[in-house]
């Protein structure tokens, strides 16, 4: 991508011990979710303890990168001035397939905001921000992947 989807002065993630693995996978364009190594419960955002069994042992589960729109909004007034010329843009909570219900808040791209609906099937599209950072956004999934199992 030659031009950034958002301007450079957007906040950038600072990884913590718990989130580093997620961002490392993202840099390789792999969408993952943290999964408790003891009881199997998934959680997002990544954290130090399983909210179900409190185990600190966890693994990264590779996801297919597809999901469905759980909810969304169309931002029409930006509070960061440099985003003003990107309006309107779509912010969505995407329920990720095969993640046992984990949701990722992100943007929907390559779509007319008026066409977005809840439960719409979407797939990840990565934007490389640098050698160590890529951000996952989502676009409508081609019809062939619609209805993929969760």
């Amino acid at each position: 991508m030659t031009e950034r989807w958002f301007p450079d002065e957007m906040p950038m993630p600072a990884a913590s011990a718990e989130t580093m693995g997620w961002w490392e996978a993202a840099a390789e364009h792999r969408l993952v979710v943290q999964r408790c190594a003891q009881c199997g419960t998934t959680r997002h955002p990544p954290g130090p303890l399983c909210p179900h069994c409190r185990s600190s042992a966890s693994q990264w589960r590779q996801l297919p990168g597809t999901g469905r729109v759980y909810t969304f909004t169309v931002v029409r007034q930006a509070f960061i001035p440099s985003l003003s010329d990107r309006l309107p843009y779509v912010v969505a909570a995407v329920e990720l397939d095969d993640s046992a219900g984990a949701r990722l808040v992100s943007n929907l791209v390559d779509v007319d905001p008026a066409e977005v609906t809840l439960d719409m099937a979407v797939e990840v599209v990565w934007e490389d921000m640098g050698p160590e950072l890529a951000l996952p956004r989502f676009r409508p999934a081609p019809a062939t992947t619609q209805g993929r199992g969760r």
Partner: protein
Amino acid sequence: MSARRGRRAVIAGVATSDYPHLPHLSEHAVHGQAADRALADAGLTFADVDGLATTGFFPMYATGVAEYLGLHPIYLDETNTGGSSFEVLVEHAAYAVEAGAVDVVLVTYGSVQLSQMGRRLGTGGGGGGFAPGPAIYDALWGNTLVGNYALAARRHMHEFGTTPEQLAAVAVSMRRHAAHNPQAQEREPITVDDVVSSRLVADPLHKLDCCVISDGGAACIVTTEERAADLPRAPVYVLGAAHATTHHLNMSAMPSLTLTPAAQSGPAAFARAGITPQDVDVAQLYDSFTITVVLTVEDLGFCAKGEGGAFVEDGGLELGGRLPTNTDGGGLSACHPGMRGMFLIVEAVRQLRGEGGATQVPNAAIAVAHGTGGMLSTGATLVLGKEAP
């Protein structure tokens, strides 16, 4: 709340500062004005205060206010749960006076958000300055505070068929109450059509689905029934209180976007007060956005889950309606300086003292003040009563 006789917690005085536009005052001066008036209302002076509860947007906030007010309290509380903070601070103060740790707690709030920000829409920004950790997961996408509440509104519409017109009815009712409040920031009557035809800020929330941004402050005095017996105002009893949280500031971590912490704090507070939602005569519910009120009336049990839209239609929140709510005009019309919770308590007390003026609910005996903080992250319910429990 369950204290031995004499040390039952009461609110003995309340006041608001001037509002909604105070370009000539500092934040501390707003605290000072509200505190001075609340003490005068209670028939007390600063010399009587031995506890201080307040919160704001930087650490050691209460000590700063104590210095400004010239107080050396033996009880300090600056618990910050966002917009619900002041319900929590009054709950804590009630426990403290009932335990005998302190006798007179001044709970005070002040803000000059409007004069500092110089804009009038929404309640704040969305980007920049995020620490490492989970909150960053929501900070990268240009979402706004309004946008976060819009995510909940859209989901509620999807699950329950709630309509933009039903959300708009909340704003219309608040404005109708604000018409009777000479201090209210917006007093011109509006219609459902005005709301849904105002510009979209973050779909499905329009400009008029959003609270105003104001300067202002408020304060109350929490003391014991015994102490209040010698004071001029009829005491208002703290019958029950509770608070809860579902997530921090990231909507990705909120278990359900249509179920708020009020579903926990409400039943717990009502149980402690020994009442049911049907016993409540008047409510002061945090109305940062119209959806906030719809979610709150459901989660507090004033109607079934999903029926909030129908509940607020056709004047359900107005005088003579099912649940007269935000009788001062609320944050949607009267005043929203950032953390409005203190205003909810002041108006609840005024209603129970029969000082509601044109929007007085006849014979109001039990009032609920419910604050909502963060991104629907926290809820705090305070049940207040005219009579001793």
